[in-house]
């Protein structure tokens, strides 16, 4: 019986740089000289550079692009595809999972289907984290959160698009979300084979059902028709600066609304924008973590003055 085929599973939501990362991996000599099977399961992505796959020795690209939105169909296609691949006996397999894939589901599928469990072993799961938009997406998209929580290694990508303060806050957040996974900050998905080899995979069994988010990340909207006390508002921002990942919207400090934004630790103001559905001067959206949502909204409510605007 020959040894099992190692799998590297790559996750990340659309736009996090998975395809660039896969293209980069295919150029690494340690991968390029091996027989690679590449499974792509993303809809609407630009696609992996086919010539790179072809140059990998006798490599083959398999696309799972049907029904990718809907979990069950994806799983079924993956089973069929992996069975095909097992027959081709590649040296290594890369799976670029759909942006909404649950890594635990993919891994448990491999361990639950005996014919797959016999043929494959998971070398590592890697999560691509888009430094610019991750904190925006994670509050709303369950898969983005679960991917970050359950992978063996976190590739913080597109770091050239954020400030050092933003990057630091993101790394702290990721460290809390997945303390087990080493993080690497890169641009263009540039990691080394040594880093990939250093990752410690946990088994599918261990990640299964661990779908409860241990870190509380939430979004809140804050609206009022009353003017906001500027000093109290700024104090609230300072008090919860560790907790607030994003904030933007209009605030009326008593002299008409202005647009405010918390970006990279800086507080910026600009002329107000028209916010549909908000019937008043102040309408803010906040993404925060590691605190009680009610406490945060109560803190903002305390900054509202008693008089109406």
């Amino acid at each position, binding site marked *: 019986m020959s040894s099992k085929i190692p799998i590297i599973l790559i996750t990340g939501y*659309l736009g996090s740089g998975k395809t660039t990362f896969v293209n980069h991996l295919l150029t690494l000599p340690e991968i390029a000289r091996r027989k690679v099977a590449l499974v792509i399961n993303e809809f609407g992505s630009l696609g992996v550079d086919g010539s790179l796959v072809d140059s990998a020795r006798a490599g083959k690209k398999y696309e799972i692009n049907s029904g*990718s939105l809907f979990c069950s169909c994806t799983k079924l296609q993956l089973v069929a595809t992996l069975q095909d691949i097992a027959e081709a006996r590649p040296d290594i397999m890369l799976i670029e999972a759909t942006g909404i894939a649950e890594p635990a589901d993919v891994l448990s599928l491999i361990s639950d289907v005996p014919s797959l469990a016999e043929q494959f072993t998971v070398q590592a799961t890697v999560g691509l984290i888009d430094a610019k938009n991750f904190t925006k997406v994670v*509050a709303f998209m369950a898969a983005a959160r679960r991917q970050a929580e359950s992978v063996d290694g976190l590739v913080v990508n597109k770091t050239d698009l954020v400030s050092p303060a933003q990057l630091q806050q993101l790394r702290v957040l990721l460290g809390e979300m997945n303390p087990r996974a080493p993080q690497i900050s890169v641009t263009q998905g540039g990691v080394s084979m040594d880093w990939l080899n250093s990752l410690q995979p946990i088994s599918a069994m261990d990640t*299964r*059902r661990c779908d409860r988010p241990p870190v509380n990340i939430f979004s809140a909207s804050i609206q009022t028709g009353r003017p906001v006390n500027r000093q109290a508002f700024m104090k609230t921002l300072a008090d919860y600066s560790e907790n607030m990942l994003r904030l933007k919207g209009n605030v009326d400090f008593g002299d008409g609304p202005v647009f405010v934004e918390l970006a990279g630790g800086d507080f910026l103001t600009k002329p107000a924008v028209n916010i549909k559905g908000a019937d008043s001067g102040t309408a803010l959206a906040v993404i925060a973590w590691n605190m009680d949502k009610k406490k945060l909204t109560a803190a903002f409510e305390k900054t509202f003055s008693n008089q109406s605007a």
Partner: protein
Amino acid sequence: MTGKERVLAAMKLQQVDRTPWVPFVGVHGGKILGFSASEFLKSSDKMVAGVQAAIERYQPDGIPVAFDLQIEAETFGCELNWSDDTPPAVTSHPLSSGVSLDKISVPTRDDGRIPLVLQATRELRQANPDIALYGLITGPFTLALHLMGTDIFMKMFDAPEEIAATMEFCTATCNALSEYYIEAGCDIVAVVDPMTSQIGPDQFKEFVGPSASAVFDFIHEKGAMSSFFVCGHAEQNLHVMCDCKPDNVSVDENIPLDTIKDICLGRGVSFGGNMQLTTVLLLGKPIDAQRNAIECMEIGGEKGFILAPGCDLPFDTPVENLEAVTKVVHDPYERDAIKAMAVEEVSQDLLDMSDYGQSDKVIVDIITLDSEACAPCQYMVESVKQIAPEFEGIVEWREHKIKYRESLVFMTSLMVRNIPTICIDGQIRFVSRIPARDELLKAVRDRILEKMRIKIARRRGRMYLLCSPDHCSQEDTKKLRANVDKAVAELGVEIDVKLISDDKDILAFGVLPKQTPAVVSAKYRTRSSHHVPEASIVKEWIKDIL
């Protein structure tokens, strides 16, 4: 009952004569007759033939006409990637590639493949008046995702007003499609919105709830019934889904059936699901499919439950697996036979848990994967650890890591199916959910009170009538017995009355035979069981009875 009556009665939470069975035959209908998925979904004749073949083989109570969540998207201009063995996939999202919403119209009866589905519905309706026909529409949030792509998640923060406008358009589309399908003869409109599993209840209420509620209201106005289908990890949204007032909620194997049952029935909504698609129906054997169906039917119960696969059936699902399910649905003897076989196989391993939880302490068992490797398990263990000291030794807790075989046997014996789970005195109390501190304290306190009640109820009085034959006449003895019986009857209490007439036994009560007739009463109370009590504790009990 006809199949249609059975499905509709289940949806109305009325009694049914047996569990209704609705196999979600999608492209699998094509496979039965040798058509590829794309051939099947592009021809009304093939759809009719495939669904009709499925009706004959699987004898369902209800069946969908077309299970393809790309029908509406195709009319919006989303590009589709066709496949031989799955429904097509959407590969482009008009609103994220520069098309504005006002350039996209609500589909008419003549757009895209809608006329094919309508024609198939009319023909299937005519041929099968007694089967409930499901018209499937893509739910508003999944439609919005088809239009916007995953940008939608970023726009929840950046431009919620754009999502609101898109959702308004999607609602109008859902209503239009519902109307077309109802007119063509569908009894039930299933709103299939799998992408809602990606968002939490707050976002659901903000972005999806108003649309979904409007669609269900519209379906009701048109005189049809409705179902809300989701797949994936959507447990967090079940409450808010029920708040949208569908008649039924149907889920896949990612959500335990007992969870959905409790939530839905508690809100007056029927429920359905959740046979395992991949590991059982596609890859398993007929016996696996039957066991899974029986398990679902037993949990689902007789009211408000519809047996169905978790989502649309995979193209290659073996026909014999579904025929086997049909057998256990239709034939109670077949069901009992399969159940008996199943019991035989597992019973050797199971522990007898009937006495579990009878000790004085309250035992809290936490079934985990391993609290060191699994975050939710860890939090669950910590939550118990924190409250245990408050009960000063009354509460004992232990973790069972199912990576060890004995723990797995323990878990199966307690009928625990999900990880992590908290059991209190052998009863499943918190499943996959970390209870708030107060909730856990209350659960333990309730159990302590329950135990006290049981103990008090178990106290039983006894009355000894001491009558030495040498000192009591038979008449006195009879009279005493009669008086005691009368007193017991008048009080309506239950006590044991025992006549003692041996002089040695009378002496043992500290009464001389010549003192008789005498009456001694006693209260018996179990002070300990299953263990040897410490002397210091026994001393306290003795003081009680002196």
